């Protein structure tokens, strides 16, 4: 009778590659599934062969429409990432790449902490642009986003030993 081999896994910080790929998958899914109707609307408002900058500057209604659409898109991103990460610790992209969001403390993840970690999707243009650069810079040098540090959240992957 062969002995069943026990597989042990440990959690290590996830790689930048997995993190970015998961993010791209999520963006792609939202783009296809959710934002299709918004893209059609945007094309109806501003036809493809028209100069975007010329139109935005010359029509107040269109410029506010584009702002509203952008704010809406950011809110949907925020809801998608925050809710799924809070509920399952994973979004679709993270499931596919095998990575998880975990609490760094002994306490469980709270909705507020996940929301803080995803605050880069708050539609606070153009101030948020500065924060994106800061967050991305911190990630490249420390393999952890600044907002994750503040929210005491880590992104991990499981490896077998």
């Amino acid at each position, binding site marked *: 009778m062969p002995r069943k081999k026990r597989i042990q896994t440990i959690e290590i910080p996830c790689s930048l590659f997995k993190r970015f790929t998961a993010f791209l998958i999520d963006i792609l899914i939202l783009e296809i599934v959710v934002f299709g109707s*918004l893209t*059609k609307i945007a094309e*109806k*408002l501003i036809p493809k*062969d028209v100069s975007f900058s*010329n139109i935005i500057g*010359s*029509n107040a209604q269109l410029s506010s*429409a584009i702002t509203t659409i952008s704010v809406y898109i950011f809110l949907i991103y925020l809801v998608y990432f925050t809710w799924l990460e809070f509920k399952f610790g994973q979004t679709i992209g993270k499931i596919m790449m095998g990575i998880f969001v975990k609490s760094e403390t002994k306490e469980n993840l709270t909705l507020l902490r996940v929301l803080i970690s995803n605050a880069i999707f708050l539609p606070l243009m153009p101030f948020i642009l500065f924060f994106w650069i800061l967050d991305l810079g911190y990630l490249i040098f420390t393999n952890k986003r600044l907002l994750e540090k503040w929210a005491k959240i880590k992104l991990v992957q499981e490896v077998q030993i």
Partner: protein
Amino acid sequence: MKNKFVYIIVFLGALYLITSIFASFFVSAVVGNVAVIPIKGVIITEGGGSDTISVEEVRDWIKVAEANVNVKAIIFEINSPGGSALAGKEMSELILKTNKTTVAVIRDVGASAGYMVAAACDYIIADEFSITGSIGATSSYLEIPGLLNKYNITYNRLVSKKYKDMGSPFKELTTDEEAKLQWQLDLVHDYFANFVAKNRKLTVDQVNSEEASFFLGIVAKEKGFIDEFGNIDEAKEYIKQIYNLESIDTFEFEKEYTIFDIISNKVGDFSFKFGQGFASGLTNNNYPKIS
């Protein structure tokens, strides 16, 4: 695991549903039912500054208005003394091609190429005192050989063929050249007169009876060059009636001014006032005396 996937699919479906509802209500809430496009300043083909309106700007605005199903009609608010023949022709062709009802509202001036643009619209409204007409072409210029002679400056004529420098201000126009230029001006005039006659349902003789002069709105109405006296309110009322609309929500375009346009305008104003003050100081005796 299975429950997790079902949950995620339902969650994505909910997001899709919310977005679709948002999208369907969005366009009608944002965009009005009548587009207002300004044709203000000298009509040119492209580029330009604050006192011009280019075909490329108007083309983009018309395309946006056309793409929107909510927009029933386009009002062209004209305040233009004219412009280049090509630009007037291109702009009026763009208007003729639109699938929306077009109404021209002539403000202070809608003359020459400005009137050509108005004539392309389905309906023209102008005030009794608006200046319109000027259905013709001009290519007048200053000839300065006398001035050059006075200062002993010689124009060295070097041309490959005899008409190459036709219309140069540095030499006198020959009879031959004048006939050639006149013939081409007549071609532009004929196109313009035929265009107006066709679109206004007039005869070419009726159009030419004014001998390319400008005239007031009162005369224009009498001669059939405009349809109604009024301004943008009458235009809205006209559109309201033909589409049985309860209300008119305008979707207005306006020329975007860059910081350079604003500065150059201010500098222009300042220079004009400076020159005006200087000239009046020279011509009047009521300037302050320095003792």
